[in-house]
């Protein structure tokens, strides 16, 4: 093999196509081709994923059709499957998580990027990155041993006593349920929001701040009225990254959600999420219809992510057109 390489290189000029081969020798063309293949593979994998999910869910798609989305029964014994309780559980837990995580995460990132001294900001960032890298099962354990007892002894009485007449705070609590899962998910996604938002805020040009300050605004005014709107698109991006993680989270959710395929208005009630039921039941699923229904749930989750991401894009486009953050596009 050692003698083969020079022959190829020597054959280059003889063959005549000088420009391509010289590019090839520079490495430009090679780099372009290789990176093109990498980029194309992302698209290919996505398409393959959808294709596999589609093909392997043919049976329930034909049998249940659209009813799959609105049926509330999940009965492996009678071979009846519906996705609604799982869709509901996924959306509710992710919604609760974002509701808690977004204000906290953005607030923290503003502090870190704008107000905190650089040394403190960098130190805290190190811990935040560490938190983002913690495996989800650890958060699940944290949920089981800390959030669940806390829910039963503190959060539930605090919310149920004064607000028990509201449907979302009605009924008994077992410690596990939608709210617990939402809280654990919020803890999990906050590092993502902080990390990305902080970077975005830090990348806002210095002149923007200086201009605001020169016009007589206070430190906070320049931050809130100039820097944050400027970074809006990036902050939105961090929120949707967090949403994507919350939607697909499996392990931590299944440990604290109670795993009952039921739809309840109360946040204290137990539920189930799409990712959790797939992980729980796939290995022991027997029978084609059962397995394929689980695959179709995967397809539903994909669809859900797709729709929410699409909505996010639209939202970003709409708000940046109206808002003052044009410069960032």
């Amino acid at each position, binding site marked *: 093999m050692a003698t083969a390489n020079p022959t190829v290189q020597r054959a280059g000029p003889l063959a005549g196509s000088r420009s391509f081969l010289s590019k090839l020798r520079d490495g430009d063309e090679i780099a372009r081709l290789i990176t093109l293949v990498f980029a194309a593979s992302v698209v290919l994998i996505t398409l393959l994923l959808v294709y596999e999910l589609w093909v392997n869910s043919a049976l329930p798609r034909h049998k249940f059709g659209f009813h799959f989305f609105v049926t509330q*029964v*999940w*009965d*492996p*014994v*009678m071979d009846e499957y519906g996705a609604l309780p799982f869709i509901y559980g996924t959306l509710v837990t992710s919604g609760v998580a974002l509701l808690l995580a977004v204000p906290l995460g953005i607030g923290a990132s503003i502090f870190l990027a704008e107000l905190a001294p650089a040394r403190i900001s960098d130190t805290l960032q190190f811990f935040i990155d560490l938190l983002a890298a913690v495996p989800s099962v650890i958060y699940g354990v944290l949920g*089981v041993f800390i959030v*669940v*007892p806390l829910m039963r002894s503190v959060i539930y009485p605090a919310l149920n006593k004064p607000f028990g007449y509201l449907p979302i705070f009605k009924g*008994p609590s*077992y*410690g*596990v349920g939608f709210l617990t899962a939402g809280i654990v998910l919020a803890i999990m996604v906050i590092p993502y929001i902080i990390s990305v938002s902080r970077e975005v805020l830090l990348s806002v040009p210095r002149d923007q701040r200086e201009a605001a300050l020169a016009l007589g605004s206070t430190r906070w005014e320049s931050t809130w009225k100039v820097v944050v709107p400027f970074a809006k698109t990036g902050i939105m991006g961090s929120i949707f990254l967090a949403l994507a993680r919350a939607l697909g989270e499996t392990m931590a959710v*299944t*440990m604290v959600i*109670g*795993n*009952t*395929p039921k739809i309840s208005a109360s946040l204290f009630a*137990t539920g*189930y999420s799409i990712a*959790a039921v797939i*992980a*729980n*039941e*796939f*290995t*022991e*699923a*027997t*029978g084609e219809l059962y*397995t394929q229904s689980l695959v179709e749930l995967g397809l539903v989750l994909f669809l859900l992510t797709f729709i929410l991401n699409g909505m996010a894009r639209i939202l970003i486009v709409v708000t940046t057109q109206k808002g003052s953050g044009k410069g960032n596009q």
Partner: protein
Amino acid sequence: MKPTAMVLAAVLATGAVLLAQNALLINGAGATFPAPIYSKWFDVYHQKIANIQFNYQSVGSGAGIKQMTDGTVDFGATDGPMNDEQLKAYQSKRGSDILHFPTVLGAVVPTYNVAGVKGALEFTPEALAGIYLGKITKWNDPAIAGANKEVSLPAEDIVVVHRSDGSGTTYVWTDYLSKVSEEWKNKVGKSTSVNWPVGLGGKGSEGVTGLIKQTPNSIGYVELIYALQNNVPYGSVKNSSGSFIKADLASVSAAAAGTAKEMPEDFRVSITNAPGKTAYPISSFTWLLIPAKIQDPGKRDAIKGFLKWMLTDGQGYAEQLSYAKLPKEVVEREVKAISKVQ
């Protein structure tokens, strides 16, 4: 060329040696419950006969049956016997039958956390079915309190816990409830996952135990082995002869012995609610799934040899790992059945 040839020769030689060492690799997949004893057996057997190596993946009973049917493994393992539909599917795909060989026994026990109750509770089948159907909702319900006269049970709501992941444990539990309650049989049925009328789901035995430990006034079910190894307290259950039995290795073996006489030819039998004064009612076999026709003569002899060893010497390893041994009657019948593998 010379160095290349030498390298090539070396690679070929190493490959040949490796091949000779792994002359016979037999792949299996299936149930997680017996995985510890299976790996022990396969390990000991490999030490005994060095050129036979078993490779077992504990992927779950359902996945084991699926892999058998797809022909990707040489043998399977399951906690619940294959049903007729699955056997038919296998036959039409692979053109032969599947033989069930019981290997060891397991049991499922009710575990609970009731405020103020220290000792073991006693459960009647009616109480267990009623609790899991959601009809008995208080701990001091006469159906529970009647069997536990010495214990003062609180007037608290019962929190029911079950497995959320598909599991052989759930299969055995629901199989038992189907036998003792007509209503359960019609409304819910038996499977590795069911549509539970009430309760919370915990992932895995550790998930169920965790929920029970943390939730006051809860009840759930776990494998006997898990309860023994983790010191989880559990209650006794009334068997078909009317005596309350606390599960242990002897009472589980007794359940198998009780059904040995009526055992069908293919060993596909549920031994829940088995007859016998000392039989624990929520017991079950776990099976190896062996194809009736094995093309490769080497593999066929290896599997048959292993089955024979497993039924005789192998049984000696069961109790140290907290599995109940097969009763003598069953072993005798299984040894005869080995000749069906061709």
